[in-house]
């Protein structure tokens, strides 16, 4: 049961189609776990529908209708299908970005218990990455220059403010310091969307900071 949800303003921007690509993908991935938020988004889309039907109609000529009618029998564009090997617990969109198995991704080891794999969404302002934390492993205390969205995909973790399981969505702002620790028994994989690189706060980890850059794109 998903307990942690995106705040209402993210869902509104999502329903209006104005969230940046990487953040939008993270919210969409949460929706595939969360019926509650799916229903909220449907109502938020009704706000769009209500405004849409009140727009001041702009003239469209019959020639355009003819052009569209002439194209109705064109073959539909091919749609992406899940690969046989894919993990069907994963949201379709992530499945598409990961394009295979976690093991096939390029993982960059940051500390003994943390590896990061950067995925390409095309969003130049946001890093879209998978964090893999060994069971019971800790991410050293850190802050962010900006905001961070996290979605748990498998396993779970806890930090100063709670415990999180698959589907849970967490937003942290730059000034929040936190020390996530993966739950025992299973490695934890999270999707994290950042608009600025994370910054370790403890002296013994700070030497890592210059090595961590925002990997947007």
């Amino acid at each position, binding site marked *: 049961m998903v307990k942690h949800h995106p705040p209402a303003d993210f869902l509104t921007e999502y329903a209006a189609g104005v969230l940046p690509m990487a953040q939008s993908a993270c919210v969409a991935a949460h929706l595939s776990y969360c019926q509650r938020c799916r229903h909220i988004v449907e109502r938020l889309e009704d706000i769009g529908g209500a405004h849409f039907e009140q727009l001041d109609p702009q003239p*469209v000529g019959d020639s355009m209708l003819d052009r569209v009618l002439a194209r109705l029998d064109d073959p539909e564009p091919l749609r992406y299908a899940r690969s046989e090997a894919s993990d069907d617990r994963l949201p379709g969109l992530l499945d598409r970005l990961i394009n295979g198995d976690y093991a096939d991704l390029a993982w960059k080891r940051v500390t003994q218990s943390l590896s990061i794999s950067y995925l390409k969404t*095309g969003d130049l302002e946001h890093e879209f990455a998978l964090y893999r934390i060994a069971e019971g492993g800790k991410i050293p205390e850190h802050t962010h220059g900006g905001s961070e969205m996290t979605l748990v995909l498998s396993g779970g973790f806890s930090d100063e403010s709670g415990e999180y399981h698959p589907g849970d969505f967490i937003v942290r702002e730059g000034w929040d310091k936190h020390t996530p620790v993966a739950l025992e028994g299973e490695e934890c994989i999270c999707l994290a969307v950042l608009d600025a690189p994370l910054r370790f706060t403890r002296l013994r980890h700070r030497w890592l900071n210059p090595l961590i850059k925002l990997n947007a794109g």
Partner: protein
Amino acid sequence: MVEKTTQSAAPPAQNSGKWNVPTGRRTDEWSQALVSVGESQDRAAFTRFFRHFAPLIKAFALSGSSLSATHADELVQEVMLKVWQKAGGFNPEKAAASTWVYTIARNCRTDMFRRLQKFDTPLASDDFELESEEEESFIVLHTRRGSERVRELMGELPPDQAQILAKVYMEGKSHSEAAAELDLPLGTVKSRVRLAIQKLQALMEA
């Protein structure tokens, strides 16, 4: 260029009679048309649907003045083709026809912006769609009523809240872009949106 005689994207919020609540015959007509298109590739129904919705899609494309007239026409064609292709997936019990068309227009516009900006991405907005699943009938009923209530609520919002929702939804402005255009602090924009959404949530839980 056709001169706009009435208000742009933001409708006057006081005029609550102007908002259609989709229980009326008029909206049902569009749901019916969509169902005929989906079930029997009914070209006559599609043509009626086109004549009603294409001018709204064009207005949507031009609001916020971010697309040229040529791109707006291209968007109308893309959206109407998608309407034809996806009509089979439309469920009149779950969504109002106008909301359904709005989501397609929104996705096509986002993809068009990205194409125009040469945004290099492996994803298209359609990838964000959720695989549809069977829902309990009480949830569907709840959904239908919720959809009607949203339209009632839109008629009751104070103008400052309605104006921002129109900017965000129709003109495709993020909260910070809306704040810059209206010369308001971001916090004010966010709190107006939040107030409107809270009313919506209260309605849904009632």
